[in-house]
């Protein structure tokens, strides 16, 4: 392309130069043609003027006096015309021109002589004609006749060069004493002399062939002019052809240039498209460190600094100390840098180009760095996990095991990589478990279950395993991941706890149940004693009796509470639709007897819930008992039981107007054996709310309190509404 444009420029300059030369030449050529026509016309006018000169000279000889002036004008115009003829002095022309000039000068000189002589001759002829006539009229005939014949002879000789007439001797004799005649004879003599001279002059004048000289000059001029004209024509043609050829060449080159330009333009556009579609930053610098091309990501990644040149780019990347600043030193470089300001990781790569420049690629490594960190984190989590993790490929070959696996199984990673997990197989896992597991995995779902696997040392362990497939491209399974927990130990201890608890419950039930009878007997005996002693019991005895009775009652309450609480630990024995209103009414009837003093209990409509009627009745008993128990002195207890549909269940509120509970105790009060008050003031075992809360939990419900100190407390019980779907069922195999 460069080659074409240079060629086009040269051709253009050449074409213009040649065209200008041609135009100048043609203009000169035209100027010469114009000059030629002027010169030719001058030649014609010269011929005409000369002819006029000849003609007027003859008129003067004929005695026409007015033509003297025209002769002056003609000779002046000949000089003028001659002066306008500008000829290039060259050999022939110069000589023929000099020749013509000589002839003209001769002619002019002869003409002047003729003019003077003609004037004299004409004048003398006129005079003699007149004077001879006058003289002859009075003279003797012998004198008059020869004189007159002389005059006649003179006139008849007029056109002759040599006058033939001679002077008669008689006249000469007579003239010696006749002064008048002598004068006439003198005139005759002079006339004849001047006549001869006039003819000589005329012969000389007409012998001068100035016309021929002029024609010769003209011929030479035309010859030279024609030669030059032909040469000029040839040169003009050559120049024209050259001009046309150059312009054609120029046009052709321009077309080639245009085509090359189009191709280059296409190539550039493609390059730009490619470069612009890169996600990496791209920059091209030439050999003089000038930026040639960048793409938008490059601008975003390095900004202004990157536009100034390769060295400035290197500096801006913070690689000045590690990288060569000039592509000449080392065009192939690679450098990973972190920019504090933008918080980006950039991977810089450069390669030298053929023309000595350098191509730079900038990759934003921030994301992969982040992913790397993320991966590290996850890997650490997996490595540190107390669960053993096994990853296999789609065929089941182990790709990864974490250290926990090695600790648990005794196999190191190197020992199991590439092998199938069946190396762990103990043979104790039921065959059905594997069938189910593979069915589930084949369906792309997660399998959970227990596996009995064998350690390297031969021990069998129980593993709670979660196994799931990992799909990649095309939903094809790429990996299986198994996360397993060794539950051998926890299984054992859980069983021990269950056993211990059952023992304890049995013991507690037996104790509290068996304790009811002796307590009943003790209270009976105290009653008997009081009755027997009657009014005799006074003083210390009566005080002891009262103390005994109270302790006995307290003990009975405690035992009943223990029994209730114990009972609430049982799993629900029976579940069915229970009418809460019925339960509350029964509880009120039972407790109302204890609180014979006036109290008001309001029951609003209550729903039916799903639950264990025995446990729920214990629950309500506890709540209502509490509501009636913590009364304020002098204030009639009022209890209100209401129900509100809320959150997919029922909230049953038991509100009282008792002493209330301070905010800070609201949580603590639900725990077993929590008491806020002295036993003497408000009797109770401290198990009521704990028991109630436990029962609520058993029913997937919740129990909490809200209270305003000194105004009253409300116990809130939330239970799921019957028919409401329970928690999502996870497919598990136990």
């Amino acid at each position: 392309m460069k080659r074409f444009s240079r060629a086009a420029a040269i051709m253009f300059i050449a074409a213009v130069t040649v065209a200008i030369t041609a135009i100048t030449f043609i203009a000169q050529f035209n100027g010469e043609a114009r000059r030629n026509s002027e010169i030719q016309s001058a030649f014609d006018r010269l011929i005409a003027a000369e002819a006029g000169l000849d003609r007027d000279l003859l008129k003067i000889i004929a005695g026409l006096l007015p033509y003297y002036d025209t002769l002056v004008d003609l000779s002046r115009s000949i000089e003028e015309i001659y002066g306008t003829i500008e000829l290039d002095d060259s050999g022939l022309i110069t000589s023929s021109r000099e020749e013509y000039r000589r002839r003209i000068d001769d002619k002019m000189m002869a003409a002047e002589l003729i003019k003077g002589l003609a004037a004299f001759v004409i004048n003398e002829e006129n005079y003699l004609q007149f004077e001879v006539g006058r003289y002859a009229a009075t003279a003797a005939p012998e004198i008059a006749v020869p004189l007159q014949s002389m005059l006649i002879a003179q006139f008849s000789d007029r056109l002759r060069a040599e006058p033939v007439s001679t002077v008669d001797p008689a006249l000469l004799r007579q003239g010696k004493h006749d002064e008048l005649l002598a004068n006439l004879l003198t005139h005759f003599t002079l006339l004849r002399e001047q006549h001869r001279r006039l003819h000589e002059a005329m012969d000389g004048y007409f012998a001068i062939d100035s016309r021929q000289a002029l024609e010769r000059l003209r011929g030479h001029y035309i010859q030279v002019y024609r030669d030059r004209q032909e040469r000029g024509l040839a040169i003009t043609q050559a120049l024209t052809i050259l001009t046309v050829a150059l312009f054609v060449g120029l046009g052709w080159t321009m077309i080639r240039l245009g085509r090359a330009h189009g191709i280059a333009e296409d190539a550039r556009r493609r390059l730009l498209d490619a470069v612009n579609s890169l996600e990496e930053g791209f920059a091209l610098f030439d050999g003089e460190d000038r930026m040639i091309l960048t793409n938008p990501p490059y601008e975003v990644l390095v900004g202004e600094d990157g536009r100034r040149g390769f060295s400035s780019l290197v500096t801006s990347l913070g690689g000045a100390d590690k990288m060569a600043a000039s592509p000449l030193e080392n065009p192939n470089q690679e450098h990973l840098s972190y920019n504090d300001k933008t918080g980006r990781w950039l991977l810089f790569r450069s390669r030298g180009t053929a023309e000595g420049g350098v191509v730079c690629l900038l990759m934003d490594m921030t994301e992969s760095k982040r992913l790397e960190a993320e991966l590290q984190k996850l890997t650490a989590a997996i490595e540190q996990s107390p669960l053993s993790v096994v990853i296999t490929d789609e065929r089941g070959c182990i790709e990864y095991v974490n250290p926990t696996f090695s600790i648990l199984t005794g196999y190191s990673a190197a020992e199991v990589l590439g092998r199938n997990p069946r190396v762990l197989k103990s043979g104790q896992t039921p065959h059905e478990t594997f069938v189910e597991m593979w069915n589930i995995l084949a369906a792309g779902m997660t399998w959970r279950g227990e596996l009995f696997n064998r350690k390297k040392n031969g021990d069998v362990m129980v593993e709670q395993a979660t196994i799931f497939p990992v799909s990649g491209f095309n939903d094809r399974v790429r990996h299986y991941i198994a996360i397993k927990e060794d539950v051998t130990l926890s299984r054992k201890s859980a069983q021990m706890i269950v056993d211990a608890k059952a023992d304890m419950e049995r013991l507690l039930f037996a104790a509290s149940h068996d304790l009811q009878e002796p307590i009943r007997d003790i209270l009976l005996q105290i009653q008997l004693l009081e009755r027997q002693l009657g009014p005799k019991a006074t003083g210390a005895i009566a005080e002891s009796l009262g103390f005994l009775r109270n302790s006995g009652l307290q003990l009975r309450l405690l035992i009943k509470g223990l029994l209730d609480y114990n009972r609430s630990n049982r799993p629900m024995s029976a579940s069915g639709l229970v009418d809460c209103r019925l339960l509350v009414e029964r509880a009120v009837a039972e407790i109302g007897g204890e609180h014979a003093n006036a109290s008001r209990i309001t029951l609003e409509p209550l729903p039916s819930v799903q639950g264990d009627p025995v446990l729920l009745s214990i629950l309500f008993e506890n709540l209502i008992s509490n509501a009636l128990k913590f009364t304020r002195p002098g204030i009639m207890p009022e209890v209100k039981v209401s129900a509100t549909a809320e959150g997919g269940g029922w909230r049953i509120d038991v509100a009282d107007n008792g002493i209330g509970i301070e905010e800070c105790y609201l949580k603590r009060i639900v725990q077993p054996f929590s008491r806020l008050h002295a036993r003497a003031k408000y009797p109770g075992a401290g198990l009521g709310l704990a028991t109630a809360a436990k029962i609520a939990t058993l029913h997937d419900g919740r129990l909490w309190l809200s209270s305003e100190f000194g105004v009253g407390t409300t116990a809130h019980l939330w239970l799921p509404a019957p028919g409401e779907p329970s928690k999502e069922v996870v497919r598990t195999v136990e």
Partner: protein
Amino acid sequence: MYRLHGLIGLLVVPLSLWMGDALASEVREKEPIRPLIASPPGESRKVDLGRRLFHDPILSGDGTVSCASCHDLARGGVDGLPVSVGVGGAKGSVNAPTVFNAAFHLAQFWDGRAATLEEQAGGPITNPLEMANSWPVVLARLNASAYFADFKATFGGEATASRVKEAIAAFERTLVSTDSPFDRWLLGDDTAMTSEELRGYRLFKSFGCISCHQGRNVGGNMYQRFGFFGDWFADRGRAETAADLGRFNVTGRAADRHVFKVPSLRLAVQTAPYFHDGSVATLEEAVRLMARYQLGRPIAEEEVGMIVKFLHTLPGKPAEPSK
């Protein structure tokens, strides 16, 4: 209607004037003398410059003599002296001819050595007996003076010899004496000439004066030998000078001895003395001498007088009023 009358009047008046003119003028075309007609005016700036140079003694060697010193336009373009007085009282060799109507001469100077007025104008400047100057001095003076600007304006450059000559010649071409009584008679004005004057004219023709003194300038258009009938140069009683050789000095031909340019008689009555040597004081004497030496015939005093009367009808009004 009035307008129509006006139009007719406008047409009729010039028509009748032209008709009247045509009727009155029987233009005498056959006469050998032709009326003088003013030359077309040259470039006015050039003419003005020429006029000032003509009158300015700056051209002479000592700054005392101008063209006008010898060619006093108020005196018929001559100085009235037999021979002119140049720088330092030097005397010229020939009688100064008039500058009036000189443009119509076939050549300038008595011997015709200058073909044009331009050639002539340079002659006196370097003639030691006239202005006695040299071109380098003249041009240096002109270019140092206010003339420089005039030359610049007229010719687009400084003064040169050819430009000085051109300017003076341009001025001289304007010096034409037109509208003489005789010219008016030639153009048909019968009242322009008295009968005596007409008789003088007829004598002028019949004596043959006319054969040399004809044309618009009544002479000046040919060369003629002085002294056909008798040797005037011997008779005048004075030694022959180089100037007396006349045209021989130019051509070198024996036949041109004593040949001179026939002088114009247009202003003859104003330009005494006469002949190339200024030796003849009166016109009458000049007429007599001419009759004797050129025509070889006796002439009566009465005829001389009538010819002189005719000659008085030839000067026209000078185109250039005396300055």
